C-alpha cells in the first residue's frame, strides 16, 4: 500500500512539474516568436514591459482574462464553449508519454522520467493529434460564421491528409526501434540519432508535422488575409487565449516529438540529459519560428496536391526501402 502511495505521489509531482514547465515554456515561446519575428522583419518586437519585454506574457494573460467573453448570437453555445479547451487539452495530454531523461535511481527505487510509459506510446500521440482536429472543427462550426466554417473545413481536410504522411514517416523509426514505446525509441538511438539513419523520413515528418499543427507555411485554416482568422474569428478573451496557448503547447509537443523520434532524445555528450532534451526541443521550436519568418503560404489546392501526390508516395517508398535494408542487414 505504501509503495502504491509513493508511486501515486511521484506521478502527481511529475504531472505538476510538466504542467508548470510546459505552460511557462508556451508563454515564453509566444514572446520569443514575437521577438525573433520582429528581428527578422527589421523591428524590435515587444520591449516595453519589464527588462527586454520579459513580463509581456503576464500582461497578455491579464489582458485576455479581463476581456469580454463574447458568444455570438445563434452560436451553438455548449460546443462553442468547450472547443477551445479541447484544443489545449489534447496538446497538453501528449506530454504524458514523452520521456525527457533516462530513469533516475533514488533511494533504491527506479523512477522513470515519464508520466506513463505506454507500450503503445506512438499510437497514443497519433490518437491525440487526430483528436486535436475536433477542437478546431467544432469551434469553427459552432461559431455560426462563414469564415469560421471555411477555416474549420480547411483544417479538417488538411489534418486528415497530412496525418497519413506523418504516420508513414514514423514507420521506419518504429521498425528500427522494434517498439511503440517512446522510451525504447530513445534507447535505440544511443549511438546514432535517427536523423542520420532516416533522413528522408525526417524531412517528411517535419513537413507533415508543420501542416498538422497549422504552423505558418500551412496556416490556411486561419489565413488572416483571406478568411479573417478562420476558426477562431468569433472567439475573444481567454477562449481565444486557449486556442492560442494550445497552438504554442503543440509547438513544444512537436519539438519533443522530433527530439524523441529523430534527434536522439536525451542523449548527448557532457551536459546532463534533461538539458540536452530541452535544448533540442527549443532548437526545433526555433526552426518553426524561422520558417514562419521566411516562408510564403502556398495556395490551398497546392497544399492538398503536395500532401497526397508527393508526401504520401514518398513516405510509402521510404517504408519499403527501410524494410528492404533492415531485412538485408539481418540476413
Amino acid at each position, binding site marked *: 500500500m505504501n509503495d502504491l502511495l509513493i508511486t501515486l505521489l511521484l506521478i502527481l509531482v511529475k504531472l505538476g512539474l510538466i504542467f508548470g514547465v510546459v505552460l511557462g515554456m508556451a508563454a515564453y515561446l509566444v514572446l520569443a516568436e514575437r521577438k525573433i519575428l520582429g528581428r527578422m522583419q527589421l523591428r524590435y518586437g515587444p520591449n516595453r514591459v519589464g527588462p527586454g519585454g520579459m513580463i509581456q506574457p503576464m500582461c497578455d494573460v491579464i489582458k485576455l482574462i479581463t476581456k469580454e467573453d463574447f458568444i455570438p448570437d445563434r452560436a*451553438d453555445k455548449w*460546443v462553442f464553449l468547450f472547443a477551445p479547451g479541447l484544443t489545449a487539452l489534447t496538446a497538453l495530454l501528449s506530454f504524458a508519454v514523452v520521456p525527457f531523461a533516462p530513469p533516475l535511481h533514488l533511494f533504491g527505487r527506479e523512477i522513470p522520467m515519464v508520466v506513463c510509459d505506454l507500450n*503503445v506510446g506512438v*499510437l*497514443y500521440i*497519433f*490518437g491525440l493529434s487526430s*483528436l486535436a482536429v475536433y477542437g478546431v472543427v467544432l469551434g469553427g462550426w459552432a461559431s455560426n460564421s462563414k469564415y469560421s466554417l471555411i477555416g474549420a473545413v480547411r483544417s*479538417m481536410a488538411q489534418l486528415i491528409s497530412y*496525418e497519413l504522411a506523418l504516420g508513414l514517416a514514423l514507420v521506419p523509426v518504429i521498425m528500427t526501434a522494434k517498439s511503440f514505446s517512446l522510451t525504447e525509441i530513445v534507447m535505440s538511438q544511443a549511438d546514432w540519432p535517427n536523423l542520420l539513419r532516416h533522413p528522408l523520413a525526417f524531412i517528411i515528418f517535419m513537413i507533415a508535422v508543420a501542416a498538422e499543427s497549422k504552423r505558418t507555411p500551412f496556416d490556411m485554416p486561419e489565413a488572416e488575409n483571406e478568411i479573417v482568422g478562420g476558426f477562431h474569428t468569433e472567439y475573444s478573451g481567454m477562449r481565444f487565449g486557449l486556442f492560442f496557448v494550445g497552438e504554442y503547447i503543440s509547438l513544444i509537443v512537436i519539438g519533443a516529438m522530433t527530439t524523441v523520434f529523430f534527434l536522439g532524445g536525451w542523449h548527448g555528450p557532457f551536459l546532463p540529459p534533461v538539458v540536452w532534451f530541452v535544448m533540442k526541443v527549443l532548437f526545433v521550436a526555433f526552426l518553426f519560428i524561422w520558417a514562419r519568418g521566411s516562408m510564403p503560404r502556398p495556395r490551398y489546392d497546392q497544399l492538398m496536391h503536395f500532401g497526397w501526390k508527393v508526401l504520401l508516395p514518398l513516405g510509402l517508398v521510404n517504408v519499403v526501402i527501410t524494410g528492404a535494408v533492415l531485412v538485408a542487414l539481418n540476413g
Partner: protein
Amino acid sequence: MASLLFYILGFIMLTATLLCITRRNPVHAVIYLVVGFFALALMFYLLGAPLVAAWEVIVYAGAIMVLFLFIIMMLGLAPQELPEGPNWHRWGPLVLLSSSLMACTLLLIFQDPAATEIIGTYYLAPQELGEALFGRYALAVEVVSFQLLFASIGAYMLGRSLPKEDDES
C-alpha cells in the same frame, strides 16, 4: 475494480449511443458517437488489447468521424424535424436486428452471471497481434486491403464520370 470500470464504461457507451441516435442536430450526434468510441476504446484496453484500443481512437474517433463531420459541414445539413409516429416499414428490420443482438447478450449474461470470463484473461501485446495479422492471417488481410483498393478505385471512377453534378458524396 476492473469489473466496476467495465460497467461504468458500458453505461457511458450505451448512454452516448442512445443520445447519438436521438439527436436532431447531426453534429451533436457525431460528438456523442465519438464519446461512445472512447468508452469502447477504454473497454478494449481493459480487456487487454491496447493496440486495438489505440486503433479505435485513431481510426474511428480520429479519422472516420472527422470525415463524417466533413460531409455534414460540406452539405450544410440542418437539424430536421422527425416524421411523427413509428414507421414500421423503416424501423421493423432495425428492431428485429437489435432485439436478436439483445437476446444474444442476455444469453451470454445468463450463462456466466459473474462475468468471470471477461476481464484480464489474456493480454494481447502489439507484437503478437501484428504477427498474427501479417503471418497467420496474411491472406485475409491482403484480400481485405484489395477490396478497399477496388472500392476506392470505384469511388474515384464514379466521381470522375459525373463531373459538376450534385456534389453529394
